[in-house]
């Protein structure tokens, strides 16, 4: 009895630093964000913060069209960017999985975009797609085409940001799927072939189900990451034209760090945390669910 109490005490002592760190770095900021969101709290106002109850949340739902628009734009961005990254990443992983000469070097080189800072990636794409100075439009005009408003047309601007994101993050998806492919046991495929399954049947009935956990993990990681994306919008479009590329993090940034309305920005951030948590939970349950 006393031995088990001793063991529990030791376990508590050993675990407590990690728990404290987690509380300080993860839980406290969330609780503090909720606290701020319940106040009128403006850094630019000489007045001290005052309690506002659910006023900021009520403003969000009742009056703020920009907030609803930003949520919608974020959803479109996630679906387009993560969807295409998954398809491309998946295809590239199969290419890299083929035992061909030179592919190993290509695989290493393909990882380079992941290592670049997203802000730098945004700047590079901004200058490439700029209507006045951009190399893309320069090439278009060289071949007799009209300039394209890559960053100032609603649809093209969203596509430009999606392309920049795909360029940077497809290699990450490739890497995860490729690692999963490498870990699949060879004997399963040999047995399938002996049973007379075609390559197409092997893909749909064996490879894909076995890759399911890896695909779901990469989906969660990329979806959460895409939901937080702000750098590309900051550098390339500032949310324009109109509000066509105003993703939620950018709107939160403008409210919190330009208008300095911390209470309102915190309310939006809390909603964002809730959305991310719910979406992540759905995926995590799928991953954990038995086959």
């Amino acid at each position: 009895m006393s031995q088990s109490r001793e063991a529990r005490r030791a376990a508590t002592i050993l675990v407590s630093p990690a728990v404290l760190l987690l509380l300080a770095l993860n839980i406290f900021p969330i609780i503090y964000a909720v606290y701020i969101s319940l106040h009128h709290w403006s850094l630019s106002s000489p007045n001290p913060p005052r309690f506002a109850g659910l006023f900021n949340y009520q403003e969000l739902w009742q009056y703020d069209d920009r907030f609803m628009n930003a949520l919608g734009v974020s959803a479109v961005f996630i679906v387009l960017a993560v969807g295409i990254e998954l398809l491309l990443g998946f295809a590239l992983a199969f290419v890299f999985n083929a035992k061909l000469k030179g592919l190993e070097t290509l695989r290493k080189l393909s990882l380079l975009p992941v290592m670049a800072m997203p802000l730098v990636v945004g700047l590079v794409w901004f200058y490439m797609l700029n209507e006045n100075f951009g190399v893309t439009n320069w090439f278009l005009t060289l071949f007799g085409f009209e300039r394209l408003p890559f960053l100032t047309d609603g649809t093209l601007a969203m596509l430009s940001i999606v392309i920049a994101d795909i360029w940077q993050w497809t290699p990450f998806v490739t890497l995860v799927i490729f690692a999963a492919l490498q870990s699949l046991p060879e004997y399963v495929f040999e047995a399938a072939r002996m049973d007379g399954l075609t390559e197409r049947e092997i893909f749909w009935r064996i490879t894909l189900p076995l890759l399911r956990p890896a695909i779901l993990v990469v989906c969660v990681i990329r979806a959460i990451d895409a939901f937080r994306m702000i750098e590309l919008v900051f550098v390339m479009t500032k949310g324009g034209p109109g509000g066509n590329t105003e993703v939620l993090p950018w709107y939160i940034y403008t409210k919190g760090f330009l208008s300095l309305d911390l209470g309102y920005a915190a309310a939006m951030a809390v909603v964002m945390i809730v959305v991310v948590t719910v979406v992540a939970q759905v995926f995590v349950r799928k991953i954990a669910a038995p086959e």
Partner: protein
Amino acid sequence: MNSAKGAKRRKFRTSALAATCLATAFSAPVIAQEESILGGETIRIIGIGDPVFQAMQKFHGEMEEMTGGTIQLDVRPFDVLRQQVLLNAQNSTSSYDIIAVDLPQFGEYKPFLTDLDGFIDATGYDGSDFHDVAWSGAQFGGAQLGIPLQPHPEIFAYRTDIFEKYGLDAPTTHEKVLAAARTISEQEDGMSGVCWNAARGTALGQTFIMDMGDFGAAPIDMVKEGDDYLMGDIQPANMKPMIDTEAGKATADYLQALMEVSPPGILNMAWDERVRVYGQGGCAMTYIWAGRSAIFEQDEASPARGNTAYLPHPSGPDSPPKSTLGGWYLAIPNNIDPDRAELAWKTIEWLASPEMIEEYTKYGNCVSPRSSVSKIDSVIERCPVIPHVEDMSIKGELAGWQRPPVPEVQIIVDVLGAEMHQVISGEKPSEEALSDAQSQLDREMRKAGYY
């Protein structure tokens, strides 16, 4: 043989050293100081990535030699600077001795700035050399809160050679701007009419309120006196937004008309890009902060160099020309360590001295808030815009009320920058956007407790 060579080499080194010393003594921009300003101390300045602070960065080493101390110059983008200054104000002791303040920010910053009148009186500092509007722009409740360093207006530049070619009138009014722009867009190959700040957010928000000023209207319900509005004592009752008005509608219409004669990519164009496109011949006219004219005036390859004339903001019907004065002042936070306040003041005196203002013009800052510097021939040669601004100042064509010095000015700019971008992108009718902006700002003012 070897020793003869060595002696020759030593002699050469000595001569070279002497020559270098002499050359340095005669050519370096040393501004004689009777006593060292910093006396070995370190001064901490937070500034902005605008021409004047960029100029300081270019000859930072020489500035430290001149002052006999260390100058820690922290240059930040606009938004980051504002956040840093506001956060610094909450510290018990300031991390900076001198802070850069934009003219409309005085309303927001005044609770935590040092009243400089004590220093001005004690040192007999003479502010009469500064443009009146620049000097008085930093006065609140009878206190001088800042010393002008780079206050400059947003003005209008146009290509004289192109205007002569087509026999066009100088673009002094909106009507003339649009007429000239249509002619040039149609007839001059590869050249558009007007470059302006149409990028979403702060760029367009500022454009809107400054252009509203061209119709003689301010964005909030300020008290009017003659052609101008009173800025020194804005009361809560004056905080009512005045966006959904006739002037607001006229401004939105003007911006929509400008879209038809603007260069490609206008919806993403902001401060530097508009000047660069103008400097490269992409448009015949541009709105421009005067200090940035160095971008093409000091670029020998630019077709705009020597072919540019400057005017105040073109005005709307029945309104006098008024250019918005903005730009940077030096101020001392009131939570500064009291022992450092005098050092900060001495440094401000020196940084805003005529000699230093002249020096900055050599490094791409075409701004002179001092009349004495504006008359120097070499300054005029480097920066042809300076006498034009001087002239506008004398004629009373500069004003600061278009961007009222109230804490909510950035909120006004942000809301307009988002709503108007929908208008100029053709996604929302101007009436609806004006009404939405008005109600959003009204809620913000109520939330801030003004009424």
